[in-house]
């Protein structure tokens, strides 16, 4: 530490340039983390907020589009409700629709068809809960998009009219579309394309997207046994995120970019400290000749790398948070999450240290005898 700190101070311009590169990577990492969390929230917050542990879809359903493809018979709900460890089972319907308010505001909605008296019926922060046949409860983000409590929306092509009676307590989105909870019967009519006033076909009245299952507290549910009994295919809640439109592609892309950033960070730190280590060879030879052990020299070099990386990442994260605060709420799916940002920051420091360590290890091979003669 004695020499490391003094060298950082002495060659501050050189270290500042290197630190700036790491700090920029940290800024980028914070932005990516914010986008990642924001996209996840925008993609599946509607599912995350459901008090559900698993969904039972049609047998052999295509997993990445289960919500749009699955059709389950209503009788499966009772079958699931009778399974050991299941606290609740309720029908769940899902479909995306285009709507327009009477004021002409166009808005897309992800309809969650639920029974008004089931455990899926959401709490509200404004208005009233589900109850009336045409009443819907929408995500607060729908208000940001121009919807108002009391508005009536008309579903394109079908003409079904729904009235906004309540607003959920937190953001509920699905596939980047605002969620609207709708009574199951209304959802079945919309899903089957039944025009307003027409009778609901017998078959449509028994069809739902999936059975939403909630396990009893502390108990696990044998999903395979339940599927066998009900003729369904279950996905845990987290697995069901992958069935949200675009979710897997988006998260995989961002994870890939983050992975590359980690690798770039390690390479940049490694390259800088490799050059630094080569430049320091004569000094290291003197240090060794003076009696510094290999461990002392390595500790000093790694301490230097750690101080530089930690300071640069801290500055970068600070700048990233400030930029993120400006972006949040601007319409871009962006959300700052301290746990994920902290993890990213620690990851950058650790991988940078690995890169630096791989570079400075070469100083252990410096021959102290080269400090003698005209070698310097």
């Amino acid at each position, binding site marked *: 530490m*004695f*020499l490391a700190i*003094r060298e950082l101070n002495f060659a501050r311009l050189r270290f500042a340039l290197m630190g700036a590169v790491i700090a920029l990577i940290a800024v980028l990492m914070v932005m990516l983390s914010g986008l990642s969390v924001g996209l996840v929230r925008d993609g599946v917050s509607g599912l995350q907020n459901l008090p559900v542990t698993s969904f039972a879809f049609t047998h052999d359903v295509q997993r990445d589009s289960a919500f749009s493809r699955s059709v389950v018979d209503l009788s499966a709900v009772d079958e699931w409700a009778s399974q050991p460890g299941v606290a609740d089972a309720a029908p769940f319907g899902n479909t995306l629709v285009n709507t327009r308010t009477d004021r002409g505001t166009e808005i897309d909605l992800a309809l969650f068809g639920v029974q008004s008296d089931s455990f899926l019926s959401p709490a509200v922060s404004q208005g009233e809960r589900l109850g009336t046949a045409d009443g819907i409860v929408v995500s607060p983000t729908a208000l940001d998009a121009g919807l108002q409590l009391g508005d009536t929306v008309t579903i394109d092509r079908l003409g079904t009219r729904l009235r906004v009676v309540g607003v959920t307590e937190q953001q509920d989105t699905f596939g980047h579309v605002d969620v609207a909870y709708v009574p199951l019967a209304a959802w079945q009519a919309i899903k089957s394309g039944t025009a307003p006033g027409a009778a609901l076909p017998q078959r449509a009245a028994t069809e739902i997207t999936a059975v939403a299952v909630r396990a009893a507290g502390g108990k696990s549910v044998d999903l395979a046994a339940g599927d066998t009994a009900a003729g369904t295919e279950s996905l845990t809640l987290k697995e069901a995120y992958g069935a949200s439109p675009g979710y897997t592609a988006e998260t995989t892309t961002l994870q890939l970019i983050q992975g590359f950033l980690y690798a770039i960070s390690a390479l940049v730190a490694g390259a800088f400290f490799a050059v630094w280590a080569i430049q320091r060879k004569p000094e290291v030879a003197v240090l060794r000749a003076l009696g510094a052990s290999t461990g*002392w020299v390595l500790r000093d070099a790694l301490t230097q790398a750690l101080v530089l990386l930690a300071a640069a990442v801290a500055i970068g994260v600070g700048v990233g948070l400030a930029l993120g605060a400006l972006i949040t709420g601007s319409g871009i799916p962006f959300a700052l999450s301290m746990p994920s940002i902290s993890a990213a920051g620690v990851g950058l420091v650790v991988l940078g240290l690995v890169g630096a360590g791989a570079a400075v290890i070469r100083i252990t091979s410096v021959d102290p005898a080269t*400090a003698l003669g005209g070698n310097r």
Partner: protein
Amino acid sequence: MSSRSAPTASTTPTDDAPEQLGLVMRAVSLRHGNAAETVQALDNVDLTVRPGELAAVVGPSGAGKSSLLAVAGGLARPGHGTVTVAGQDMTVPSRRTRTELRRQHVGFVFQSGNLLPALTAADQLRLPLRLGPRSQRSGRDPLELLADVGMADKADRRPHQLSGGERQRVGIARALVTEPSVLLVDEPTAALDRARSHEIVRLLAHEARQRSVAVVMVTHDHDVLQYCDTVYEMVDGKLAASS
């Protein structure tokens, strides 16, 4: 001149306790290179330097002078022979042990000082005191020692703010700060003018006597030999007392 040394007055170190506190090299040989091409850097070298004695080693480039210092300071291990500093064997196989012995008993003065660019003159002296474990961190007061070598007013200056002579003074002080038994000095006047060269070697002779340190100085500069107690000549790895 014989191929083996004929040191002046100290040829039987085993009989003489004070010699054991200095540097004793016996029948030391060192080869560089591989089986295909080898260079005999040191050839059966004997050398004894007592505490307080300043011994000079002169000789042409490539004669083995730096190799002599490297072996004496435990930087290199000879193929044959024994080296003791303050009675400690500097030829032990363990590099870690040799490093520890060097830290405790040997001081190096390099060409042009070889100071670390990031450190002030005072920090150059503090550094060797911090290289070992905390329990072994003892030595002289750096500022006091800087004052002894006439550098008290430049304690806060870095190497690039010092002249060649000043750098060398700091280098000498750095080598002395751990109170070593042996000082190994490599071409201390290589980058200095005549006046500065005399000043530096006078300082070395003074410090050697005052602190009872055995000093081996490798030099090309015959002008400064007047300050040395003994002078050796090295040619093709062989050391002999100079006429």
